[in-house]
């Protein structure tokens, strides 16, 4: 790149072409005050505080928008510059209220900081105030536009970064202000309360209601969001052992400076007064508080007696998509090693497994293939069955940015008019449950119009001829008849997808709710394989995992048929490896799934169930059946952060630490293992799940001695090749994506770069089967409903907005 030399305050400095004066000054360590500038936003030169003097002409230039040019002589602090800046800031102050003493922005106010740097005290201008009503009706953001300095950061953040566009400048001149359409309150606009505007606001015009007047943050601890599967990095801001606010952690994160409403404002469940704080034992139908010693002793005795009387298979365990990898690993180890039962399943009963097993059949590995960051730089996106902006807002944001910033084409397959169709090029509005037919229609066009990647198909796949014969009947016209999607649209989408340099597929929960998730996954894999859109950057198939650590729960072998790291129970080598490490025989027979466990409980074959972090009464279909099954147990233990419908039925309830109160790791949707860190001590007597399990196991006669979750991860790394190179030391530098087989391995951003697991990707014909009975469409309302709502319901802001959004939806 061309070097350009300019003189900055008398010294010669070099910058590259396209750099602004401000950027070069910052690089050279020269301070220029700014109010409207933010490196994440396009510069607009609105505030004029960054003025500098061109010494040759004497002109004042806004340094944030002026590119450097060769031979330029710039003075950033001449008397002329300072005088101009002072005038600009004094004019701003003339329209700004003197409410600093009660303004929550306090010492973080940029206007106040710059005013004091410029030596501004008394303002000689006439004060003209703008009077606006303080807007406080929504639960998250308080707007006091009388303090607004019109820097436009909120507007630009909302439009450029989030692509939500709830606000824009309205009116003109002195009356100008940021406003929603028709100047309605935020909660009646399309605001999603991601809170970025508050984060960017340099003054006190926008403030967080939840953290208002909670004082200065003493410590910020980096961790990972406990809601959806994106795995956003964030800081928990702590004061007096309480999390008072959350801010995004930008460096080495999937989310940059963005968070969604759940991440940013959903943290107040942590300090909820409803949290479980002591172990509870049910005596004569009533819970009474107990000590840990007593509670664990009862559990140990009861589990042991069930094992002795009915055998190990009479015990079952249910892990959690909320808990850490270490918690989940220990739970399955506790069941397999200490209790000798493979009856272990995670709390995800219906959502993810079919889809992933489809991908496994095709690629040999059932997991999201590429990285979330790549979505922004792809040319074509096919989003299927996923209301991404609701369920995974940060992935939704990347999709919108791909379209709006990088001109990607977006095709949305969804029976409903979801939000993202606003930016889509084509909305393939299919009949519910006809996705497989639609995918076959796309494949038909790709093959018969000759758009498939011959080289890729020949060298890296198998089964082409069979697929070609099979697909004949799925002509676009035939598929139109089934799906209701126009044949012409099917053709256009197939051609665009096949001809793109890089094309990705994003599939979500909605694509698997009709019981054909596996077929859909295989169909999508066929499409990716035929067009070579797999095994390279910016391509692949994403499955948007619904929960923060559901991926991790699977990875950790919280499944009845797999040991950690998807190592089969019936593979003697794997089994032996675990037996050596654990020093005990691992039971060989495949255990029961969660569903089977409930059946078995009703039949009296399962006598005791241990539930960790999961409200199965709500999360499993047929609530009454689940309740009956749990009631027929001899013994039920629930370990959770709140009393919930499942815990009500338990014999012993153990108070667990929340994500903010423990160390560990979560694995997100793109296989990224990231550290969560303890920010505060557990509430009351609560303990981390891994700690509870280790103590219990030791009590039961199978000692588990771990000093910290880091030691558990060392054991996981020894046993699970995919996690082989993972250690807490390395995770300090940011997340690592598995497979990461050894300590020097940098992690894997996208899979199958060097071929598929079983050498070839398999093209597998699938058929559209008319759904038996009526297909029901279950709209995703995931943004505000997460899991069973244990956390959301305990977050005041989130729970109230769920109410508002339901009202609005009903109103429509």
């Amino acid at each position: 790149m061309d070097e350009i030399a300019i003189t900055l305050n008398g010294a010669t400095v070099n910058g590259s072409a396209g750099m602004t004066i401000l950027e070069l000054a910052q690089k050279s360590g020269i301070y220029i005050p700014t109010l409207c500038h933010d490196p994440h936003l396009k510069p607009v030169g609105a505030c004029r505080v960054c003025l500098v003097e061109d010494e040759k002409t004497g002109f004042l230039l806004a340094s944030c928008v002026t590119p450097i040019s060769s031979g330029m002589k710039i003075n950033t602090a001449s008397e002329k510059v300072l005088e101009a800046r002072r005038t600009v800031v004094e004019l701003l102050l003339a329209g700004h209220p003197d409410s600093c003493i009660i303004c929550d922005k306090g010492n973080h106010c940029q206007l106040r900081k710059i005013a004091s740097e410029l030596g501004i005290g008394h303002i000689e201008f006439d004060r003209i105030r703008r009077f606006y009503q303080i807007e406080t009706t929504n639960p998250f953001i308080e707007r006091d536009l009388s303090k607004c300095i019109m820097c436009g950061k909120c507007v630009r953040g909302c439009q450029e970064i989030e692509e939500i566009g709830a606000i824009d400048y309205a009116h003109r001149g002195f009356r100008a202000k940021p406003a929603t359409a028709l100047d309605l309150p935020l909660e009646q606009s399309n605001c999603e309360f991601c809170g970025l505007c508050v984060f960017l606001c340099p003054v006190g015009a926008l403030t967080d209601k939840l953290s208002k007047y909670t004082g200065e943050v003493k410590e910020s601890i980096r961790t990972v969001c406990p809601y959806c599967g994106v795995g956003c990095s964030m800081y928990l801001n702590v004061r007096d052992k309480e999390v008072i606010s959350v801010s995004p952690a930008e460096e080495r994160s999937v989310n940059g400076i963005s968070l969604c409403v759940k991440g940013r404002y959903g943290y107040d469940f942590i300090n909820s007064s409803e949290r479980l704080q002591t172990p509870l034992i049910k005596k004569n139908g009533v819970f009474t508080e107990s000590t840990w010693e007593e509670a664990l002793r009862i559990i140990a005795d009861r589990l042991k007696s069930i094992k002795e009387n009915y055998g190990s298979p009479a015990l079952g365990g249910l892990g959690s998509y909320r808990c850490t990898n270490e918690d989940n690993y220990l739970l399955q180890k506790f069941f397999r090693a200490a209790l000798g039962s493979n009856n272990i399943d995670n709390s995800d009963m219906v959502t993810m497994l079919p889809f992933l097993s489809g991908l496994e059949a095709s690629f040999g590995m059932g997991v999201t293939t590429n990285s979330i960051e790549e979505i922004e730089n792809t040319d074509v996106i096919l989003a299927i069955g996923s209301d991404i902006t609701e369920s995974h807002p940060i992935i939704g944001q990347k999709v919108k940015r791909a379209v709006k910033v990088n001109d990607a084409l977006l095709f949305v397959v969804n029976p409903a008019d979801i939000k993202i169709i606003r930016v889509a090029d084509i909305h393939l509005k299919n009949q519910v449950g006809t996705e497989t037919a639609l995918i076959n229609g796309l494949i038909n066009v790709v093959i018969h119009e000759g758009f498939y990647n011959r080289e890729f198909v020949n060298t890296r796949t198998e089964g082409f001829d069979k697929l070609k014969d099979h697909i004949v009947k799925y002509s676009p016209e035939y598929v139109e008849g089934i799906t209701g999607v126009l044949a012409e649209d099917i053709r256009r989408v197939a051609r665009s997808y096949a001809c793109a340099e890089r094309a990705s597929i994003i599939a979500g929960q909605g694509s698997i709710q009709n019981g054909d998730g596996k077929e859909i996954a295989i169909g999508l894999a066929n499409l990716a394989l035929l067009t070579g859109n797999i095994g390279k950057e910016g391509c692949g198939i994403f499955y948007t995992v619904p929960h923060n650590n559901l991926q991790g729960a699977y990875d950790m072998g919280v499944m009845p048929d797999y040991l950690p790291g998807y190592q089969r129970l019936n593979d003697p080598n794997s089994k032996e490896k675990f037996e050596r490490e654990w020093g005990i025989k691992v039971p060989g027979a495949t255990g029961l799934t969660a569903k089977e466990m409930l059946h078995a409980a009703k039949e009296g074959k399962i006598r005791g169930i241990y539930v960790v972090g999961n409200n199965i009464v709500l999360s499993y279909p047929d609530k009454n059946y689940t309740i009956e099954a749990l009631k027929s147990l001899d013994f039920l233990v629930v370990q959770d952060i709140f009393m919930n419908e499942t815990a009500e039925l338990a014999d012993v309830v153990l108070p667990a630490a929340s994500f903010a109160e423990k160390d560990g790791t979560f694995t997100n949707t793109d296989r990224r293992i990231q550290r969560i860190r303890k920010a505060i001590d557990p509430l009351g007597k609560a303990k981390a799940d891994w700690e509870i399990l280790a103590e219990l196991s030791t009590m039961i006669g199978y000692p588990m001695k771990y000093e910290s979750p880091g030691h558990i991860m060392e054991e996981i790394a020894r046993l699970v090749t995919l996690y082989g190179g993972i250690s807490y030391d390395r995770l300090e530098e940011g997340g690592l994506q598995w497979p990461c087989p050894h300590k020097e391995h940098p992690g894997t951003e996208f899979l199958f770069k060097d071929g598929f697991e079983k050498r070839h990707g398999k093209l597998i014909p699938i058929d559209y089967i008319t759904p038996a009975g009526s297909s029901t469409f279950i709209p995703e309302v995931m943004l505000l409903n997460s899991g069973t709502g244990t956390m959301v319901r305990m977050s005041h802001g989130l729970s109230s907005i769920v109410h508002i959004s339901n009202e609005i939806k009903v109103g429509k």
Partner: protein
Amino acid sequence: MDLSSLDKILSEYKNKKGALVTVLQKVQSEFGWVPPETIEPISKALKVFNSEVYGVLTFYSQFYLKPRGRYCIQVCLGTACYVKRSEDNLRKIKDELNIEVCETTEDMKFSLDAVRCLGACGLAPVLSINHDIYGSVKPKLIKEILNKYE
């Protein structure tokens, strides 16, 4: 309100970049104002944020978010008219119609605006009603002028 003619305008400009002002002008000439319920369909069709549509609507004084009267009175307050006491004319109209600037009479007959220069300074003070221009207007002539409109 019947918005069926909106679709025709929007289908012409669907997904066109930079067409927002044109579309808003067409909508306004179709309905006489820009009904708020058109903002959402316009924003969808042009793929712009609804807040942006509102921003543009409120930026330009030529757009009206409230229904307009059948006759739009524009009283010039530009320099030439101002020194010729056009404010007196404005006051008289306000009194006659019992409305303020930017308002419309209840019977939806007249809307009143104060504008800067109609480009007829030689005739100052000037006012216009729809496309009729009145020059050298005096307060005592106002009633007569207004009475011309049914």
